[in-house]
């Protein structure tokens, strides 16, 4: 849980306490995030887009300090774009993930950033890499992050199975995010989804009244 509540500078420190998630399937990845940015108890932006493109087929999901994650994403986008031109082909997701790790680890004392990097490349297909606070890097078939993530570990463990289809992944992610948004006060708004595969990126927004409903809600 990324909490570093500082009442003195909370007005100047917008935070994505958030819930973010990414799942691999055969042929690509599905990523999702809520849309709430808070400064203290005020919701500064209720329609934030936390799914940021880094390259044509590589996205990152951002949680933690809004400023820190935007700055890191900008740096990595530049570095990856340059690298891709030198290589003269599409970059690997693993490369993007390592660039995030390099920045997050080197400046770990100053930063508060939890990032999930996900995308498709032709060498390994769909991949999800997670770079939590502190700067470690690990590849996982499914990863959740942000303050709302604690509430959905159980749901994820019981509902994720290897070799799911893209639609099953979309349902898993939208279901998990809506559960987390229901329980976590720091997550909310709409659910933003993106499905990344060889053919391209397919983005969706699920509005509050269209979210999956559960019997206790």
């Amino acid at each position, binding site marked *: 849980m990324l909490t570093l509540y500082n009442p003195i500078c909370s007005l100047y420190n917008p935070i994505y306490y958030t819930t973010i998630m990414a799942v691999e399937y055969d042929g690509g990845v599905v990523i999702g995030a809520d849309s709430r940015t808070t400064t203290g108890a005020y919701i500064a932006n209720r329609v934030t887009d936390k799914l940021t493109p880094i390259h044509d087929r590589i996205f990152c999901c951002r949680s933690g300090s809004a400023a820190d994650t935007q700055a890191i994403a900008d740096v990595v986008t530049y570095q990856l774009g340059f690298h891709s031109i030198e290589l003269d082909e599409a970059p690997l997701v693993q490369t993007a993930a390592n660039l995030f790790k390099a920045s997050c680890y080197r400046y770990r004392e100053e930063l508060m950033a939890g990032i999930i990097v996900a995308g498709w490349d032709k060498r390994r297909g769909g991949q999800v890499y997670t770079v939590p606070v502190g700067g470690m890097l690990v590849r996982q078939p499914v990863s959740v992050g942000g303050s709302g993530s*604690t*509430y*959905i*570990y*159980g*749901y*994820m*463990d*019981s*509902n*994720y*199975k*290897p070799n799911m289809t893209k639609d099953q992944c979309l349902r898993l992610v939208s*279901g*998990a995010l809506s*559960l*987390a948004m*229901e*329980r976590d006060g720091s997550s909310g708004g709409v659910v933003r989804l993106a499905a990344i595969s060889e053919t391209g990126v397919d983005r969706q927004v699920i509005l509050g009244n269209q979210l999956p409903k*559960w*019997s*206790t*809600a």
Partner: protein
Amino acid sequence: IMLDESSEPGWLSEEVKTGTTIIAIEFDGGVVLGSDSRVSAGETVVNRVMNKLSLLHDKIYCALSGSAADAQTIAEMVNYQLDVHSIEVGEDPQVRSAATLVKNISYKYKEELSAHLIVAGWDKKGGGQVYVTLNGLLSRQPFAVGGSGSSYVYGFVDAEYRKAMSKEDCQQFVVNTLSLAMSRDGSSGGVAYLVTIDEKGAEEKCILGNELPTFYDQ
């Protein structure tokens, strides 16, 4: 070199907490309570087989979480008070009465205590009932989860709970929830204890670690 290193093991000076995952759920005709069995003092597990489902009366149990000493003491006090009360009224006490007794202690001493008890049982007036007494409130709910491990399974229980589940469904629901929480929460683990209470009485069950359901990544 550490000059002031203590020769005493760390866990002797740490507060003993039942890190825990506890859950209780109503069904038509009774309740099912479940808990893990880990008691930790800092990072050491001082008891790996503790039964956190404590008897308050024949058909009323409570699930303990938080500080082990505080929770056990509240349960013992309420057990005594309920015995006296049931003799005075001449019949089995209501679940609501037990929950109110727990709530009274939790609320009066809320600054000094750090324990959360979920009270559940069966009585002939209201059937199966589950009450939460967190921080001194009293609220009846169709089901309740508590303890440090509960954070990880809020999403799961919200998604899986359906109204009007049968007794066997509830038992399976409780076991699944405990298993998921125990695999994610470092302060929960060991075996799973289950108590099913209905009109006929209370049935206790213990499910060993290797008999618990497994999910992805286990």
